[in-house]
């Protein structure tokens, strides 16, 4: 099992390295540069700025310097738009916000999506199933940029304590977390239903029922563990995506998280910030997938035996 995990970790490091390398060259191929503004800069000033940040060097030299600074000095570079501010400081400030939002969003998604999927599977092809899956499909189809302002205008404006947008009191987190949570709950509900429906039709469940097991016991003790496997596989990347921020939700609720940095850095060609954010996202994805692998090993005995073999 440890060997399996180490192998996955090694693969993860490789993935992050490739991701970072591709991003490095792709962002430099985009038209424009970080110093473009409303006014056209005189050529001598543009050259001065480019050379100040080593951007006049060839892409390979820049690439070498980038990794050298990270590995030798732990320096992810400065923001090219907010000059004088290290990229690491910007990420360190935004990450806790996105993390909090992501954790709450995922908790809501799991609390709503998994029970909904179980209920749906239990009442398969009957009206509760149709109703729940209809709602789940609506949750998948309606985009966040519709849900978020809708929540803001209805709940945020009229429910005392809730905040329409902003990040200035404890309850500000509720609506953005709810938006993120419900969208993911819809996916989780469908995945859980699929997994559970398949398990509930298997022989061992029929045997359990024939032996007189109560329905709830069948559902929770016999079927749940295997039925959750597809949902658990989804949870890892979804969690990583949630805690690295959502541009739409952060914009609609004015949340100072990583999602805003991601999009603004790309639009502004803030090369080092894009690199830093992609690195952060890559590492989180790898870690989340590793956690999923661990969870799957715990839930699925067959994987354990394959792993040890």
């Amino acid at each position, binding site marked *: 099992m440890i060997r399996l995990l180490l192998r996955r970790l090694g693969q993860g490091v490789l993935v992050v390295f490739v991701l970072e390398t591709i991003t490095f060259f792709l962002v430099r191929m*985009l*038209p*424009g*540069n970080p*110093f*473009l*503004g*409303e*006014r*056209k*800069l*005189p050529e*001598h*000033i543009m050259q*001065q*700025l480019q050379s*100040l940040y080593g951007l006049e060097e060839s892409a390979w030299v820049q690439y070498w310097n980038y990794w050298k600074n990270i590995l030798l000095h732990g320096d992810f570079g*400065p923001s090219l*738009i*907010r*000059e*004088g501010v290290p990229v690491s400081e*910007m990420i360190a*400030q*935004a990450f806790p916000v996105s993390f909090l939002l992501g954790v709450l969003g995922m908790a809501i998604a799991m609390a709503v999506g998994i029970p909904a999927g179980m209920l749906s599977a239990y009442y398969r092809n009957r009206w509760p199933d149709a109703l729940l899956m209809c709602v789940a499909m609506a949750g998948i189809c309606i985009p966040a940029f519709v849900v978020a*302002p809708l929540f*803001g*205008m209805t709940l*945020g*404006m009229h429910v*005392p*304590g809730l*905040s*329409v*947008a*902003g*990040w*200035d*009191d*404890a*309850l500000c987190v509720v609506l953005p977390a709810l938006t993120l949570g419900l969208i993911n709950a819809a996916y989780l509900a469908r995945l859980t239903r699929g997994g559970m429906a398949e398990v509930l039709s298997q022989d061992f469940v029929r045997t359990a029922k024939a032996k007189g097991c109560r329905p709830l016991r069948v559902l929770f003790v016999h079927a749940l563990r295997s039925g959750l496997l597809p949902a658990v596989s989804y949870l890892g990347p979804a969690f990583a995506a949630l805690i690295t921020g959502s541009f739409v939700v*952060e*914009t*609609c*609720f*004015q949340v*100072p*998280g990583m999602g*805003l*940095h991601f999009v*603004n850095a790309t*639009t*502004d*060609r803030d090369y080092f910030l894009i690199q830093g954010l992609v690195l952060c996202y890559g590492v989180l994805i790898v870690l989340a997938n590793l956690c999923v692998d661990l969870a799957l090993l715990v839930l699925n005995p067959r994987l354990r035996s394959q792993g040890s073999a």
Partner: protein
Amino acid sequence: MRGVNVEKATLWLVCAACFLTGCGDERSSAQRAAGDGVLLIGNNQEPQNLDPHKATAVADGKIISALLEGLVRPDARVEGQVHPGMAVSWEHNADASEWVFHLREAQWSDGAPVRAQDFAYAYRRLLHPQFGGKYAEMLYPLKNAAPYNRGELPWEKVGVSTPDDRTLVLRMEGPTPHLLHLLLHFTWYPVPSHAVEQHGGMLDRSSAWTRPEYWVGNGAYVLEQRVFNDFLSVRPNPRYWRAHEVQNRGIRFLPIVNGYTETRMYFGGKLHITNNVPPEMLEMAAHRAPAEFCRDDYYCTIFYRLNTVRPPLDDARVRRALSLAVDRDMLVQRVVRGAGKAAYAFTPPGAGYGIDDSAERRRSQKARVEEARRLLAEAGYPGGKGFPTLELMTTSRDVQKLMAETIQAMWSEELGVHVEIRSCEWSAYKAAQQNMDYDISSSSWSGDYLDPATFVELWKSTGGNNCTGWGSPACDAALDAAARSADVGQRLLHLAEAEQIMLRESPVIPLYWSERTYMKSPMVSGWYPLMLDNHPLDAVRLTPAPDKP
């Protein structure tokens, strides 16, 4: 025992709920902040830099103006009127090409005296050939500033001198009667030379002196805290020379990019002043809070650049025809829901200047279209026959896309001319525009200072921001004459002549002059309509009103 636990748990739950919902204080954030004397302002975007030599964005300028003060300061109510700032008095020679400023006894926020040398240091830093000052051109009216910036002359040749700690002498390239308006821009502010030197020196672009913990300023406020994409807060500077006039206990600038979110936040009691109500929300905002809805003139022109190097746009008749066929009134109604004025000239009227466009305004759109068809036929494209398909480049902003679609339909219906819309994200758009890789480009220009030169000088044939490939010796000559003119009236006439020449040749299609639409709480006073949107925040007052948002 079990009952006691339930009671305890209930008590804890109630306490937590009360804490979370703040049931002890039902006031909105804006009301609470007003009670604390803190002004909440929506500031459009996360500021890029608070160093006046690295900043370029409007959002940065608003904060810098609260933190630093130049030689003069603006009036809160009358656009273009200036009051003594760091300079207590000034005089100039007959042709306004040499100015002498006498500085008051003032202090930086760390107690060091503000000296004339701080101004000279600031100007040298922004212009230094190795600093890479993006807005260095703002100081080019200073004698020899441009060659020094290009590294062709030493600093000693630049027209800045400091005979003593309290006297600053500025020698200009030519008569500059409008210098006081220029001085209101943050590029002319001083910087604390001692603090800049302490944190890396003059040429260090990553200098930490603008971080809240090291900030030193001479303005009404000092920097307090900055959380990226959340807020930036300032508090009063006790060493400011007019500290007794500053009544607010702080200002929070909120970088809210999305106008919909910002307007919702205003109505949710989260802001005192917003930056922008988007066109789709204008009707709702004006209806819901008519007394709080503001619509101010703004020193900004929305226009299309035409690439005059590429055929068929190299023919002035074609350019003129395209311009005539645009129904500006309909455009203003459809695109910005009336929040603008149809523009038939480039420079927005103001500062005693304005091109007489009354004849054009009186003319019916039908007559304009007929002339457009005639011009197009003369250019060899009767009814649009044989006219190549052009590309109309816009940014990805909704307003710009809607505007492009509306104009596309107008040209197609009225002239038989077909254009394809190319929507680009910001950096790609700017790169294409500045490299002249476009046919027609959606553009805007807002004035840095209240003077028509900030608009008209764009069309100098050698101007870096021209980006149309158009140039005219007659227009250049008129601009040169304006630059040599010491007489204010004569100078404006020369500028108007240059603009008329440009308008006849139509390298651009002026579309409309913007208006700023925003919300202002009744708790706010001392905030008046200003075309440059450069409000002195020390004059803004807050009066808590518990029953209003």
